[in-house]
């Protein structure tokens, strides 16, 4: 499978938004491999409610980019059958909470088919799910559901936080022979970055975290929608005399213990930051495994800054729920700096 098939450049593509990079990734993947099929609600004529599949039906025809009936279990279930016949379906779930009807298919089949058949039936399915809040969405349009997918062995779980990663990780997800839950941070869809679609970076290897900002005082461990918050917090922290390192996890499954632990061993302190509710959320796993591996390097317990343990709030109240710069800095302040004096 080559990524070099001739495709037209995106119009006005630099600076590009994350949504544009995702579109480009789908298009390049479809051009490179006729087995790649896109399906979901409104992905065809409309180009998806976030326009991520814009133009694909026109370019590749309705059999390659298909408007399905309105039934998420049916979408993922038929994708399983398509993958059994050798296709590489890319499924769009319209919003995070609307992926729940497909939960049984995901947990009981997608995650287990390869294992069930001793490798005879791998399912190279990518499930794209726009997730998270901060866009003023009404109820059921802002869930952070990554904890459910992390707790399901057999799935990979990826989430980009930059325009370049949106392209690279989505190409990697589609190229993977394993099923991937690909979580797209809704509030970063329109975030721009200068990015050259003519020369997209190589497909990223799945499973690698990356240090987005080097620092020495403490490590912020984060991903997806919370990366910009952490980078902003790191800037603000300089005033307080803290030089924070920021690690973008990118891959929640598999987890990059090496990169994460190298950072925390260096800094001796860490805060996990995410939008998802704290209790039973990703931060518990991350804090626990970092502590298991770096206990004697830690000056303070690994702290967590997360959404509250409540149903996602209505738009007018969501800012109180979402971890912001101040909440991150408050947590950093609680990292027992006294011990240093």
């Amino acid at each position, binding site marked *: 499978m080559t990524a070099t098939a001739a495709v037209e450049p995106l119009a006005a593509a630099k600076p590009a938004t994350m949504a544009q990079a995702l579109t480009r990734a789908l298009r390049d993947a479809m051009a490179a491999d006729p087995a790649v099929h896109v399906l979901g*609600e*409104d992905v*065809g*004529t*409309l*180009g998806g*409610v976030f326009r991520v599949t814009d133009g694909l039906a026109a370019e590749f025809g309705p059999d390659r980019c298909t*408007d*399905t*009936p*309105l*039934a998420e*279990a*049916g979408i993922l279930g038929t994708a399983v059958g398509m993958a059994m016949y050798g296709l590489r379906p890319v499924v769009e779930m319209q919003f995070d*909470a*609307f992926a*729940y*009807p497909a939960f049984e298919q995901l947990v009981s089949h997608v995650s287990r088919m390869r294992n069930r058949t001793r490798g005879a039936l791998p399912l190279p399915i990518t499930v794209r799910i726009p997730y998270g809040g901060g866009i*003023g*969405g*009404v*109820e*059921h*349009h802002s869930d952070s559901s990554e904890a459910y997918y992390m707790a399901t062995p057999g799935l990979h779980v990826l989430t980009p936080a930059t325009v370049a990663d949106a392209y690279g990780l989505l190409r990697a997800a589609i190229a993977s022979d394993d099923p991937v839950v690909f979580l797209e941070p809704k509030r970063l869809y329109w975030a721009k970055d200068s990015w050259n679609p003519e020369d997209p970076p190589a497909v990223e290897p799945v499973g690698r975290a990356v240090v987005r900002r080097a620092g020495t005082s403490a490590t912020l461990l984060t991903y997806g929608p919370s990366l910009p918050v952490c980078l902003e917090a790191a800037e603000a922290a300089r005033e307080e005399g803290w030089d924070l390192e920021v690690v973008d996890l990118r891959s929640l499954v598999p987890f990059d213990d090496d990169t994460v632990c190298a950072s925390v061993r260096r800094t001796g302190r860490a805060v996990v930051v995410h939008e998802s509710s704290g*209790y039973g959320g990703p931060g518990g796993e991350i804090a626990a495994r970092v502590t298991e591996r770096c206990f004697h390097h830690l000056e303070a317990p690994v702290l967590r800054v997360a959404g*509250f*343990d*409540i*149903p996602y*709030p*209505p*738009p*007018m*109240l969501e800012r*109180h*729920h979402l971890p912001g710069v*101040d*909440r991150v800095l*408050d947590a950093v302040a609680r990292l027992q700096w006294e011990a240093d004096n």
Partner: protein
Amino acid sequence: MTVMEQRGAYRPAPPPAWRPRTDPAPLLPDAAPYRVLGTEAVAGADPLLLLRLYRQLVRGRRYNTQATALTKQGRLAVYPSSTGQEACQVAAALALEERDWLFPSYRDTLAAVARGLDPVEALTLLRGDWHTGYDPREHRIAPLSTPLTTQLPHAVGLAHAARLQGDDVVALALVGDGGTSEGDFHEALNFAAVWQAPVVFLVQNNGFAISVPLARQTAAPSLAHKAVGYGMPGRLVDQNDAAAVHEVLAAAVRHARVGGGPTLVEAVTYRIDAHTNADDATRYRTAAEVEAWRAHDPIALLEGELTARGLLDEDGVRAAREDAEALAADLRTRLNQDPVLDPMDLFAHVYAGPTPQLREQRALLRAELEAEDADGEGTSS
């Protein structure tokens, strides 16, 4: 012992007699949507009911245009308009008794308003100050359901519970054409039929699920043909004909109330506006198609009938319009005020009493807000 081994003794017999569990014929819908206006059936319609429907339609249309305008002004987070579908919304509300329950989806705030709910309370979800703006038990209106068709089993369970309690309460549940593809639709109809629950399922077939036309949603002769597969009657009605929708719904409600079980009603209409204000309908349909349906407008249809029969004159039209304008003005005034919000509400109703964890988190937020306030005061003084 296998059958082979007992072969000598064995005598094949015919199968135990098979009979259909119920006669399918009366469950099948008519070949075309039922109409009253412009047909002979109109003679039997109650003039007072027609006038009531008319005034509600006019009000409903004005409600739709006003809510849409307020959304453009940023006063609602999103608004899924029911313009063109008012007949269904209004007839659904008027077909119910006070003790009955309505189960609306996100598009059905008008049905709730036509039932008498304060429009500002009906719009709370879409304004975004809270999820549900009213007490469902007080009004017997379930929360607007956003996850499609998940409200249908709720309607069945509620109707079933009422029946078990000996109450002759009927539940009317609204769903879109797209929603009929979801598994929950199927499960709800099946439970209702097996339990003979007093529920009426009303599919507003407006031709689209966002951008997806009905032909990509189903290959069925009509959505009403699904009913026979559950063993309940399926009815097909012209949704833009308020008299017809009301008649069909009222009959289904009566049938359910006396223990006749559920009915599936498909009302054929068209979504005149885009899916919501955030949608661009020009991407997937032509203006000509929309215009063809505008010409079959539910208000005009009823107005024409009433005028022709001398039941409506200029004064009547003016009165209806004034009533609608009053509603719109009230909506403008009240939605243009910023709602008073208390961030502590985030924690107030997650559980009956707060868990230790939520108590900690509430304290954290309170401390943050106090610090913000102090900062704010600090800056301004």
